[in-house]
């Protein structure tokens, strides 16, 4: 049972994780699900792996012996825009995950997730479904509230620009944060069940800060910088 992309060849995954047992565990689960997995323990190894070919999916830990995973995510985002990126996290805390999202990651994978869940998550990701956890959704909507109240103090935690989110997208995030399923959210908001993942994908893209100039542009838009 080999997982295959649209073109038929096997789906390649680059797994960057410095803790060997965790790495084995994830690799086992993914290989068993039929993915072609290359693993790297450091940023340098990951970069040399990238020199060969672009992976379809990147799963990376953030704290690596020779640097931060965010650097790797940013690089891959620029070089291979089609690669789906996910963070591997022990706790799924917002602090690390949100900073990864702003450079182009889509959600996170818990290190202790059950093998079936790991495979399912990656499959959904490749299928274009971007998973978003309740705690991440909560963090984002709390941040939109803070921005709406115009609080002078910068909110704690990583920088996040929520200005581009539409009210509908914020409603969807609220639903996820409160634990509603996609179906429940869709029925509450009068949407089709199938459109919800697309909205979530949009949310991820809107939270991403692509370049330095864009960051400046958005800061101006938000009134953070006065020209």
């Amino acid at each position: 049972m080999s997982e295959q992309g649209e073109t038929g060849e096997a789906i390649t995954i680059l797994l960057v994780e410095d803790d060997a047992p965790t790495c084995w565990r994830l690799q086992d689960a993914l290989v068993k699900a039929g993915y072609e997995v290359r693993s790297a323990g450091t940023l340098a190894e990951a970069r040399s792996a990238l020199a060969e070919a672009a992976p379809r999916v990147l799963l990376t830990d953030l704290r690596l012996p020779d640097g931060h995973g965010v650097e790797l995510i940013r690089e891959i985002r620029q070089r291979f825009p089609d690669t789906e990126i996910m963070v591997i996290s022990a706790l799924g805390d917002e602090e690390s995950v949100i900073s990864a999202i702003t450079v182009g990651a889509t959600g996170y994978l818990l290190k202790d997730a059950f093998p079936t869940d790991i495979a399912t998550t990656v499959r959904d990701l490749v299928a274009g479904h971007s998973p978003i956890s309740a705690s991440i959704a909560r963090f984002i909507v709390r941040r939109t509230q803070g921005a709406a109240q115009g609080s002078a103090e910068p909110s704690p935690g990583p920088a996040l620009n929520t200005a581009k989110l539409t009210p509908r997208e914020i409603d969807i995030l609220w639903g996820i944060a409160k634990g509603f399923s996609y179906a429940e959210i869709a029925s509450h908001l009068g949407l089709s069940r199938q459109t919800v993942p697309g909205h979530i994908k949009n949310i991820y893209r809107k939270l991403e800060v692509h370049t330095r100039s864009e960051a400046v542009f958005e800061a101006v838009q938000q009134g953070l910088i006065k020209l």
Partner: protein
Amino acid sequence: MSEIAAKAPTRPRRRLIVSRLVPYLLLQVLIVIATILGLRLLQPSDPDDFAVSGFSLREDGATRPVTLPHFTSSRYSLGDPPLYTGAFTFRRDQAASGWSVFLPRFSNAVEVAVNGVVVLDSRRDANANRPDRNTPQIAMIPASLLRDGSNEIMVRLFVWGPLKGFLDTVYVGPDAALRPAFETRTLLFVTLPVVFSAWQSILAVILAIMWLMRRREPVYGVLAVAMVLGVVQAFVPPPVPPAPTSRLAAVLLASAPTESALIVMFGVLFFGWRWPRYGTLLFAPGLIVFVVGLIAGPPLPRILFLVLGIPTVGISLFLMACVTATAVVRRQDAASFTIGCAVTIVLTCWVHDMLSVFEIVTNERIFVSRLSYSAMLVAIGAGLTWRFARALNQVDSFAGQLVARVREAEERLKASFAREEERARAAALANERTRLMRDLHDGLGGQLVSIVALSERGHEGATITDAARAALKDLRLVIDSMDDIGGDLMLALGSWRERATAQLRPHDIALDWRVATPQGLPLHPELRPWHVIQIVRILDEAVTNAVKHAQARNVAVTIETLDGGQGPYGVISVTDDGRGFVPSGNGASQTARGLRNMRSRAARCGAVLDLSSDASGTRVRLQLPQVFPDSDAAGG
């Protein structure tokens, strides 16, 4: 021993007084000498070339030769005034310009006739007749009146008592020669007093305003009243007898003693002492003169003025000198020295005038006390204004200091506030740390210990995995509860749903999530992280029981808001379709311990836990409080 001790302080004190008073008194002696010299030097010089001093006086029917200056007896009748008749020589060929007759000083009024024609009558000029002013008079002699050779001059001297009449040397000569002397005297004895009086009136207004704005400093008011009196006295011309307005005259007569008493009062107040009640006696002479003037006609008020008023002025000046001397001894400051010297000058002038009046020394009857007094008042007024301005400056600098001090205090306050805030933050942090420690100890610690224990006993696989997973789950719960959820418990339940679903999925148990009311649970602004932890742990326990012990296939979580009439409250129910258990509650089994834990956690949050279990399943109903308790009710 004690006597010495008692006497000891008085001796240096006396020595101090002497050491301060003697130089002061010596200074005053110098000032007296200087004043006398000044009066002598400043005596205006008259053109002696044109003096006419040989006169024959016809008085009371008798005629005798006299030499001017001459005093006549005092009289109270204007009829038959003393008539001085003299002669002067006029050479028409010498006379380039017109001739004048110049009278430097007379008392009280004169009528001058040349060759039988009246050329001057001072009675028409009320100010000229005031005995306290030394007004000179000059009159042109029409050229047609003058005869080549000897001419006759007649001076009628009108006197109203009680003072003696006085006629100074008469000068007749070319106007050009006489006028400078006249101008000098006019400047000294007419213009200068007017200038001083005008000055006084301005100061009176300023001081009155000061007093009006600062009622608790009567010193300004007293001085203002004294000045107003002086101004009135100077500018209101006294009626010339036999004019009938004697009341006005009486008021004007009363002004001098009243003024002098006011000045003493000013002195006492100025140096910061209390005005003694018996001091009011000083005003009695002025009052008596005033009342008598109102009741009786002249000349009684004038006699009274001479008897009562003039000595009162002297006494007042003397008292003032004493007051200033005391002030000098006590304060040794510029103000007391200055005022003391001024008082000495005025006192000297007063003595000089008295000597003139009583003809103890030869004199030309020039009265200088009024002039010196006016000068003193002006000096005092100017000094007071200066002091006021200086006080304003001090207020300004004080305000500046105050601003600086307030800023300093503000800084200190800010610093201490920051310190306080820092302390409060530290305390809050310590609290939070304690709570976190307890939460970690309650969950994670125990689970890690059990992992260690399991590993040591050689257990493998599932049990250790479960324990480790439980530890991770608890760690996530603790971290999750740290997040600010703004009082919305639904946000915490959202994450919990994910974790519970993940936990149930390997067991093929479906989690049925039902939110019965659209908004879920009511908002609780008072919700704290530790409330969230307790509630989520209760729910975890319920789900774990369903998985481990009840072998349920379905777990349903129902969230709803109820309103029993006393406001809305939330209810969370966890129902499973397992085989149930007997809720004995006092067993030692793991289930029983879990149940006890759930109840105590619910109690700490002020929630009510209902548990029912039978063969068809178990139902845990957690009824949330309307308001979560602020402190941990059941303690750690």
